[in-house]
């Protein structure tokens, strides 16, 4: 027997909400990153669930794309964070506000 698709979607929504809350409430850049990963994977889960339900491989293909792009994004993002840490000795995103209007 199979798990109904709605369960996957509820889990995906919960994961996304946790990620969103993390992005909104935390100040540590690394935690922000982890939260973003959480949101991405929540979306991935929803894609997989729908792909399974409709028997359409397109959803799974998109997930691969997301994974690859997320990996690339992490590389760039971590490089930026390291550089910020080197120059300003902080990873607190609220302290990095030189572009404030």
């Amino acid at each position, binding site marked *: 027997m199979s798990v109904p698709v709605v369960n996957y979607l509820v889990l995906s929504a919960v994961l996304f909400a946790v990620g*969103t809350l993390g*992005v909104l*409430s935390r100040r540590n850049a690394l935690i922000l990153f982890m939260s973003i990963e959480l949101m991405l994977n929540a979306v991935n889960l929803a894609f997989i669930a729908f792909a399974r339900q409709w028997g359409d491989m397109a959803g799974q293909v998109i997930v691969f794309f997301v994974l690859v792009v997320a990996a690339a994004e992490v590389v760039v993002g971590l490089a930026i964070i390291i550089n910020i840490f080197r120059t300003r000795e902080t990873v607190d995103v609220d302290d990095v506000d030189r572009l404030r*209007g």
Partner: protein
Amino acid sequence: MEFVWVVLILPLVGALINGLLGRRMSKRAVSGVACGSVGVAFLFAVNALLGLLRLPPEERVFTQTLFDWIVAGGLSAKFSLLLDPLSAVMLLVVTGVGFLIHLYSVGYMGEDRDYSRYFSWLNLFTFSMLLLVLADNFLLLFVGWELVGLCSYLLIGFWFTKPSAASAAKKAFVVTRVGDFGFMIGLFLIFATFGTFDYFRVFEEAPQVLAYGGALATGITLLLFAGAVGKSAQIPLYVWLPDAMEGPTPVSALIHAATMVTAGVYLIARAYVLYELAPVSMAVVAAIGVATAFFAATMALVTHDIKRMLAYSTISQLGYMFLATGVGAYAAGMFHLVSHAFMKALLFLSAGSVMHALGGEETDMRRMGGLRTKLPYTSTVFLLGSLGLSGIPPLVGFFSKDLILEETFLSGNTTLWLVGLAAAVLTAFYMLRGHFLTFYGKPRYDETKVHPHESPPVMLWPLFALAALTVFGGILWISFLNFAPFEKFLEPVFEGARLVGEEEHPAALSTGMLVLLSVLAAGVGIGIAWLVYLRGVTVGEGLRRAFRPLYTLLYNRYYVDELYTALFVVPGRRLSEFLAGSFDQGLLNGIVNGVGRLVDALGGALRRVESGYIRAYAAWMLVGALAILIYLYLR
């Protein structure tokens, strides 16, 4: 003839050398470049004249295209020069008299520290004037026309640190601009009608295109005349010329007597084909000419300033020239132009010699007197000039002025002739009055401080040359002997002119009588001047009181300057003040500043969005995403 372009280019080269390098050159070198360029140009002009004379009369037209200047749509203006008898005459006057005045300036301006600036502008003027007379289309003529206006402005205001000179320069520029406005509209009309600016094409097509006496012909000619009125200082735009005497005296001689101010006469003579088609315009030209001749002469009667007296005299004589062109006697007008150039250059330069002798810029005749023994040469040549201008035979002025009066009489317009004759009496009177006040009587200058001395040879020789021209110039055209090489020379140019017909208007007076009358007029004027200023005959108290209001009126120049100030200058200044104050500072500045303030306020409101907190951005993104979702859901 092929070298006519050299005549044009030489003064320009001189102007450039003196203008760019003059400050680093010695005075001798500057004078050499300036006088040399004009002198050689004169030789080339003589060469061009000889070239013309070698041709049969009807073929004496030579055009030389230097390059295409403007080609745009239907407009094609070439930078090309026209050498025909008319422009050859002007060419010789401009370079010949110009050369003498350049030479004179070497002495007169010798002490000025802006020596090279003076000569570069004088050369530039010569170039501009040559461009004006050599142009073979109206557009190029207009370029020369405006350039001489610019040079006039620069040279009147040569001593620009003197406020009166600076404002006189401004006045000359602005007042002539009024006439030029009409001139430009006239040019536009010519282009709209003929589709070209080229003299020959316009004049060839004019009889077919323009109806005789039609509104278009009258309009074009009157508008061109407006330009001439401004440039040649005729009523009502003559007010700038007396003030222009603020410039150095040789400038007054060259620009404001001999050459530039005659440009208007040249223009009408050049475009006579158009004027022939507009009898109304001809009548206007003649009427304004004779009115100017008379009124300017009355103003010259009472002025105490020797240069202003000569300026009014110039205006008056220019009036005679317009009278001549107005009655269709173009050749006579041109002859008076040439003769006046000789005499008035002579008079101005002698006046400059007097001022020089009195040590600077003294122009008030009330502080001169008795200079005859101190300045024998200057006194003699001044007398020659005065008598010439008065019309005493056998000086050149007699022939030219008599010719104009004669032609006017023969044209059948007795009123014009009478006014002209009256102006001749006045001319003789004021010229001799000036002469007697300056050179006779007791010295009225401060003899302890001023020791008059005759001018150096470099100033005297040009005077002698001009005096010789004044004495012998008459042989160019002795009307009553039918000896007229000058007229013969110009004849091919004016062959289409309507004949001033002895046949049409059987003369009431014979030519001999007319000559006698004009000599008599001069004699009367001289006689009165002699009685009043030399014999010291004073008129009765009653008569004097009766004439007092007239004298005051004349002395204040009919209050025309005051009238123009009240009519144009004061409202103009008010308008400018309004535009500069309320309009510019208030309205325009308000709009500009308002836009700035609006952007500033908008930016201030928007900058709060850029908080610098990433979480805030993320929250806004979330809000946005939710909003889109809700919208899609509700749709």
